[in-house]
């Protein structure tokens, strides 16, 4: 499938000499939700800003739906919407005038019914004549989303869309993002809430110190790098792990009451059954057991720490 965003060998060095991006290559598939993760200052916002035309690249090429963002900037930018990280909005304007402005700025003819529906979907319709300064932080964030959607983009960049937003509104936004994807909009989001990426993203990219260190399907990533764990609560404490169980990757808690077995998707599927039989053979009884698996956040942290 032809990617909707193609980033080739993209680099950015600011005048201060700081190299924010180093030879980044990235393809975004049409209709997917792509989560770009990375610690502060990793280069996420620089990458987005270059694709959107806000920052000049030092080297490399970017295409949006086949259009070069420099040579064919008009066609490329008409496709792209951006919800910035900062609450950058003219507070003296009304909600209606600011979304009308955004639609016109991106070359779209006025369309009142569309904008009316958009504001209703974002629960902003009753505030359409309010000045933005009178709105809460969460509402201002929604105004920014309304501005980006006012010109019906095919690609939407969301730079920390739920930063500073309460839990309920965050869930609403996730739902809205899914609806946009269902309507054919390609979504690229950066977030600090790994839970957000885990919940929504189809694919995940991890950027660190200006380098894209990983791009992977979310489920594949969690399978490949995710660890699983089986914990067994023993009936009686033991002092050490019996030698008959040394073939298993086991650890014993300090109080001798819990055995922990770590495995991953590549481990022998029958290993757990064998382990439980071996425990029985050794006369070790357990009163409870449970399994857990690492979250995307655990994987992200281990990836970043590994690189450091």
């Amino acid at each position, binding site marked *: 499938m032809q990617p909707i965003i193609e980033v080739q060998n993209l680099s950015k060095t600011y005048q201060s000499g700081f190299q924010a991006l180093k030879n980044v290559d990235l393809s975004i598939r049409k209709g997917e939700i792509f989560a770009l993760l990375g610690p502060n200052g990793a280069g996420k916002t620089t990458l987005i800003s270059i694709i959107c*035309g806000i920052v000049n690249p030092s080297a490399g090429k970017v295409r949006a739906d086949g259009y070069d963002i420099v040579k064919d900037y008009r066609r490329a930018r008409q496709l792209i919407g951006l919800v910035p990280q900062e609450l950058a*909005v003219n507070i003296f304007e009304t909600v209606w005038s600011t979304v009308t402005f955004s639609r016109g700025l*991106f*070359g779209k003819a006025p369309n009142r019914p569309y904008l009316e529906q958009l504001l209703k979907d974002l629960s902003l319709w009753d505030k359409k004549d309010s000045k933005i300064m009178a709105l809460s932080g969460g509402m201002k964030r929604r105004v920014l989303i309304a501005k980006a959607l006012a010109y019906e983009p095919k690609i939407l960049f969301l730079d920390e869309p739920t930063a500073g937003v309460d839990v309920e509104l965050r869930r609403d936004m996730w739902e809205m993002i899914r609806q946009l994807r269902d309507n054919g909009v390609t979504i690229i989001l950066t977030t600090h809430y790994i839970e957000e990426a885990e919940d929504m993203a189809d694919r995940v990219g991890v950027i660190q110190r200006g380098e894209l260190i990983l791009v992977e399907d979310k489920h594949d990533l969690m399978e490949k790098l995710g660890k699983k764990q089986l914990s067994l609560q023993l009936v009686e404490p033991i002092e050490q792990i019996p030698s008959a169980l040394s073939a298993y990757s086991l650890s014993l808690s300090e109080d001798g009451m819990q055995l922990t077995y770590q495995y991953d998707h590549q481990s022998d599927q029958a290993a757990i059954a064998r382990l439980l039989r071996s425990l029985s053979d050794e006369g070790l009884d357990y009163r409870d057991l449970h399994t857990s698996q690492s979250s995307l956040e655990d994987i992200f942290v281990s990836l970043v720490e590994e690189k450091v």
Partner: protein
Amino acid sequence: MNGHAIRAIYLFELARAWRTLMQSIASPVLSTSLYFVVFGAAIGSRMVAIDGVSYGAYIVPGLIMLTVLNESTSNAAFGIYMPKFTGTMYEILSAPVSSLEIVIGFVGAAATKSVILGLIILLTARIFVDYSIEHPFWMLGFLVFTCVSFSLFGFIIGVMAESFEQLQVVPMMIITPLAFLGGSFYSIQMLPPLWQTITLFNPVVYLVSGFRWSFYGVSDVGVGISLTMIVVFMLVCLGIVTWLFKTGYKIKP
């Protein structure tokens, strides 16, 4: 050409003037009217006519120029500085608009406001002094050219400014003194020869002189020279704006 974008920027900027009507229109009209009252109606009656024109009428073109130069510069500078200050510049930079379209939107709106302001002051002056307009077409032409040129100049200041103070410095510290010393209140021929020569280096002299010619048919310098100077100034400003957008200086990191 992205006509919708030009329209959006233009209307947005005009709406800002409407929101700040007292500051944008009422305040400059009132302060200029005070000049007409003091120098036109009160002191003007005691002054001798210049080039056959009563003093009160003589200063009308100069005072309109004084106001529109300041307002054109301030309006355009503030218009482009505000998105930089509030961070909303991201939207303009990420939009499918060319630098020319951005300039047309911002400068067009600033110039429109100044032309309207100039015409309001012209009408207001009629209350206090009696004047005539010998070449109305040229009067409008000089007014529009001047407003566009100085709006371009203001746009450059707005792009380069890094604080609100810097926005105010050029109008207050440069344009106002140049306008006062550029023959707004007198004919430069009333000055000693050395000062006449020095004054010719003041670009505002050519604007005021040409504008006054359109009213009364009298001027300190030739009309052709005045027009040439305005066009040269406009081209220099356009050149600087083009360079700013091409290099991204103070616009794009």
